[in-house]
């Protein structure tokens, strides 16, 4: 009888734990009509609720200490989720590059509270040409890498 009560309490605790963590929040990016010739997409969840000051800051490796989750996708669709996000309010940015690594599209949604958000919607826009891989990085098949031939798959997603 005691074991039964203990098992019930454990089950209750497990249900509470499961319902309070691991909730998946959909990431919706648009408009779809702007997608043309994209070869890489970078999704970043920032530690702050505020978006980086401009696309250049969003693409700058020097700002990576402000990134909580950094996810690369080859192409414009992801086969897997971006990943676990720490509690609190964050900014979510999406940056897409062309085959020459030039940034074509960029969007950022600030102040996303993952405790309550039903979904994250990021609206991106065309970026004036000129911004490619940052200093120290080279373009390899549309992905900015730290060394020629580096395998983007180690940090990205094939999907």
């Amino acid at each position, binding site marked *: 009888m005691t074991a039964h009560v203990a098992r019930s309490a454990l089950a209750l605790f497990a249900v509470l734990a499961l319902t309070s963590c691991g909730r998946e929040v959909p*990431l919706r990016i648009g408009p779809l009509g702007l997608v043309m010739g994209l070869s890489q997409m970078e999704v970043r969840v920032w530690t702050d609720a505020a978006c980086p000051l401009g696309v250049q800051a969003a693409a700058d490796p020097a700002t990576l200490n402000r990134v909580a989750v950094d996810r690369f996708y080859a192409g414009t669709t992801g086969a897997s989720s971006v990943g676990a996000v720490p509690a609190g309010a964050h900014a979510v940015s999406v940056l897409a590059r062309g085959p020459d690594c030039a940034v074509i599209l960029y969007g950022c949604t600030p102040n996303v509270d993952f405790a309550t958000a039903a979904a994250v919607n990021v609206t991106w826009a065309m970026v004036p040409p000129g911004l490619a891989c940052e200093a120290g990085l080279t373009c390899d098949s549309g992905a900015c890498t730290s060394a020629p031939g580096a395998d983007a798959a180690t940090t990205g997603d094939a*999907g």
Partner: protein
Amino acid sequence: MQRYRLALAPLVMALLWSSAVEAQGGDALAQAEAAADAGDFERATELLTAVTRDPRRLSPDIARAYTLLGVVQATLGADAAASTAFEWALALDPGMPTPPELGPTQRDMLDQLRRTRRAHPLAITVDAPADASVDDAVVLHASADGAPEGRSLRVEITTWPDDDESAAISANGAGSASVAIPAGAWPAAREIHVRVDATAESGGPALVHREESVRRRGAGGGGGGSVFEEAWFWVVVGVVVAGAVTAAVVVTQLPQGATLGRPELIP
């Protein structure tokens, strides 16, 4: 008609047989009275003594037999034996009428016995716990008081678990008896029944009896029921519930994390 006679034959035979049985037992009292009336006091004493030792007899019969025995002994001048018989009769029937056959001296003796008997009625005392754990040995002790002067009662104590009457154990002794139930015995029993009978020293039917019961704590088998009466159970329930509530509060107070899903392009 012949058929009806055949059908009634067993009934008639049964009635005859029961009458014969009644005459054989009841009438030992009637036969004793007849013998006493006829002056055959030896025969009357023999018959009445047999009645007092017959375990099938009920208390009123025994009380009546002792009364008659007292009268017979008083008539014979055996005052000590008469006194003992009257004492037994009073023990069983404190309100017994004074037999008209007694002379003034014997009436005084009976009145004195009646007063004494009122102060010391026939009684059984049982020393048993109201409840006991399955893990504890239980000792049951019973004693009987109120026997006529110079006599004692034989006490028989019998105990058995409520789930198995065939497992009964008993003990007897002069004036008192004890039974010990070892720790761990009858683990499934939720109650232990105790019956105590007191008979005359020479045997015979129970002159007085008493029944008690001992509730078992921690009795297993069959689930539900007794465990809810255990303090430790509610302590465990309290601790578990408090723990669960605390965990729930802590979990709900924690910052709520989430997983950002896979990118999905929308129009």
